[in-house]
C-alpha cells in the first residue's frame, strides 16, 4: 500500500500494464521524451523505448485513426489526447470508427483501445482545456466512458480499461491529478466497470456524482452533516456502462436525489441518470430529482470559471431545496 496522487497512480498503472503485456503501446503528443505535459507518462519512454512510447505529430485524427489499424494488427494502443477538448478534432475517428468497428464487422475486427484524456476546470487553463464533454462521448455508442475520482479507482479502472476488449475513453480530472491522493495497493487489481462506489451511507437524501465533482460533493457533505443532514453519496465511476441497479437502490433508499456534474445541463449525463431513476424508481420518489451542473453556456475564461463549475454551496442549496420539496 502506497499513498499516490492520481497522476502517479495512472503512471504506475501504465507501467504495470506495459510490463504485463508487451502488446500495450502508448502514443500521443509529447508523451514520450517529455513524459506528457502532466508527466503522466514520465520515465516510460526511458523504460520501454521510443517504439512503445511514441511521440506523434500534432494531429489528433490520425492519432485516433491509426490506433484502429494498430489494434487490428494485434497491438493494444493507449493513446493520449493532450486535453479532452482537442479530442473533438478526432470526433469522427473516435465515435464513428473506433467505437463502431466491432459492430460494423460483426466482431471480426475489434478495437481494444484506451483513450486517455485530462479534462475539467478550476485550474486556470486557457480555453478548451477544461470542458467536460462526457455526454457527447456517452452518445458515441460502442464506446465505454470511465471517470475515476480517486487514485485507487484510477489504478483499478485504468487496468480494466487497458485489458478491456472494447474501446474505453478514460477521463482524468485535471484538478485531481496532484490534489487527489489516497492509498493504493501495490499489487495488481482491477475494478469492474458498471459498479458505482458508495462514498457514504446515509438516509436523508441521495447525491449522485462522478469524477471532478466528487471533491465538490465531499465538501458539501461536510456542511450538510454539520447541519444535521445525513446524505447517501455515490460516485458512478463509469457512465458507460452505467450501474442502473446500484443507482436505483441508492435512490430508493432515500426517495430524494441530487445529481452533480461539471458539464452543462442540456442532454448531459445527469439527465440520463434522472430519466432512468424516474423510469425505474418513480413510486419511491418524494421530491423532484434535481441537478447541479454548469449552465448551458461555453466554458468561460479563468476569471469566472469558479462561478461556472458547480460549487459546494450550490450543492448544499439544492439538497436543502429537495428536502423541503
Amino acid at each position: 500500500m502506497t499513498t499516490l496522487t492520481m497522476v502517479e497512480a495512472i503512471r504506475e498503472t501504465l507501467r504495470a500494464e506495459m510490463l504485463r503485456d508487451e502488446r500495450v503501446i502508448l502514443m500521443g503528443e509529447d508523451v514520450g521524451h517529455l513524459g506528457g505535459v502532466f508527466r503522466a507518462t514520465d520515465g516510460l519512454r526511458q523504460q520501454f523505448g521510443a517504439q512503445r512510447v511514441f511521440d506523434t505529430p500534432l494531429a489528433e485524427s490520425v492519432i485516433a485513426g491509426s490506433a484502429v489499424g494498430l489494434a487490428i494488427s494485434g497491438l493494444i494502443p493507449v493513446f493520449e489526447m493532450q486535453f479532452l477538448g482537442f479530442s473533438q478534432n478526432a470526433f469522427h475517428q473516435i465515435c464513428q470508427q473506433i467505437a463502431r468497428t466491432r459492430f460494423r464487422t460483426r466482431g471480426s475486427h475489434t478495437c481494444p483501445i484506451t483513450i486517455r484524456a485530462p479534462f475539467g476546470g478550476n485550474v486556470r487553463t486557457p480555453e478548451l482545456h477544461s470542458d467536460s464533454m462526457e455526454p457527447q462521448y456517452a452518445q458515441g455508442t460502442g464506446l465505454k466512458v470511465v471517470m475515476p475520482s480517486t487514485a485507487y479507482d484510477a489504478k483499478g479502472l485504468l487496468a480494466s480499461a487497458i485489458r478491456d476488449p472494447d474501446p474505453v475513453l478514460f477521463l482524468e480530472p485535471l484538478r485531481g491529478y496532484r490534489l487527489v491522493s489516497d492509498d493504493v495497493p501495490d499489487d495488481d487489481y482491477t475494478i469492474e466497470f458498471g459498479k458505482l462506489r458508495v462514498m457514504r451511507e446515509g438516509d436523508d437524501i441521495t447525491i449522485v456524482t462522478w469524477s471532478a465533482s466528487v471533491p465538490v460533493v465531499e465538501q458539501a457533505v461536510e456542511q450538510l452533516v454539520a447541519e444535521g443532514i445525513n446524505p447517501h453519496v455515490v460516485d458512478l465511476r463509469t457512465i458507460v456502462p452505467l450501474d442502473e441497479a446500484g443507482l436505483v437502490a441508492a435512490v430508493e433508499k432515500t426517495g430524494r436525489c441530487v445529481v452533480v456534474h461539471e458539464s452543462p445541463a442540456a442532454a448531459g449525463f445527469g439527465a440520463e441518470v434522472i430519466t432512468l431513476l424516474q423510469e425505474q424508481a418513480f413510486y419511491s420518489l418524494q421530491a423532484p430529482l434535481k441537478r447541479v451542473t454548469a449552465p448551458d453556456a461555453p466554458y468561460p475564461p479563468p476569471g469566472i470559471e469558479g462561478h461556472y463549475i458547480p460549487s459546494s454551496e450550490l450543492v448544499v442549496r439544492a439538497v436543502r431545496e429537495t428536502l423541503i420539496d
Partner: protein
Amino acid sequence: MSDALSPQFKPAAKSVAPHKLLGPKGKLLGTAKAPMTDAQALEALRLMMLGRAFDTKCFSLQRQGKIGTFAPLHGQEASIVGSAMALNPESDWVVPQYRETPALLRQGYPLEQIILYRQGHPHGGFVPDGIKVLQFQISLAAQIPHAVGLAWGMQLQQQDGVSVAYFGDGSSSEGDFHESCNLAGVLKAPVIFLLQNNQWAISTPREIQSAASDLAARAPGYGFPGISVDGNDLFAVYQATAEAVTRARAGKGPTLIECHTYRMWAHTTADDPSRYVDEKEEKRWGTRDPIDRVQRYLADSGNWSDDKAKAWEAEIADEIQSAFDNAAKVPPAGPEALYEHVFETPTSTLNRQRAAHLQEQ
C-alpha cells in the same frame, strides 16, 4: 527594394505525363517490357472482368429494388486490380474505400459477403479470420489513418507486410489524408497511398477539387515519393505498386500513387451523372478501356480469343450466381442483431433495452 525573392517551391504550370506501359490498343509502348507474365495478366483480367460483371449485375438488381445503393467500379478495373496484384495476400492488407471489390476478392474475401453487404445484411460486415482486408469505408478518407496504423503495427511487430489505402481524388481533400501521409512519412511506415483519381467526386470535377496540377505532387511535402500513372493501364499500375511495395518492405517508407482513371458509370446507383458529366469527355475515356486493352494484349500472344471470352463470361456469371445463392442461404437478421457486437459483452443497459424491445423475459 531588393530583387524579388523567388519562392523555392513553385506550383507546376501543368500536369506531368502519367507513366504508361500498355497502349490503348494493347501494344507495349516504346521500349516498355511487360511487368507481369501472361499467367498473371490472365489472373488480373479475370478479376477485372468479374468485378465489372458483378457490378453490372448489381446495378440491375438495384434498379429492381433487390439490393441497396452502391458505387460501381466501371472504368477503374485496372487501377484496382493492377495494384492488388502487387500484393501478397498472406502478409499485406487491402484497405478499401468502396469501389474495390476485386481487390478484396484477390485477398480471399468471399464475394457472397459483398452481396450480403449490398443487401444491407449485418453479416455483410463480417471479415473471415485471416483475410487481410478492412471493411468498405463510408466516411471518406477515414480509412487512410487505419491503413497507416496497420503498417505501423506490422513494422512494430517486425512483420514484413505492407498496407494499401485506396481513396479517391475527392477524399484527398480531407484532413485525414494529410494527417495520415504526414505520420506515415515520419514513421517510414510500409503503406501505399493509392489515389484513384477518377476525375469526379460525385458531381465535383477534379479541377475544382484542387488547384494542384497533380495530386501526386503532394508527396514531397511528406518526405516520400509520389508517382503519376495511367490508371487504365494494368501494367503501369501494377509496376508502380510493385515498386512501392518493394520500397516499403525494404523499410524505405510510403509512396503516393496517383492513378489517372475515369468513373465511367454513375457515382452510385442513386446518382444521375447526365446532370453534370461531359459526354465528349466520357466518350474519350471510353476509348481507353482498361479491360479491352489487356484482352488485346493477350490476344497478340494467343492467350485470348472470342471463344475464351465467351467461356469466361459464362464461368463468371456462374461464379456470381453461386455467390448469390450462398448469400441467399444466410437467414435474414432479426432485431436481436441490433444488440450484438456493440460490445463483446452487452452492458446491463443494452440487455434491459433488448428485453423490453423484444418482449423477452
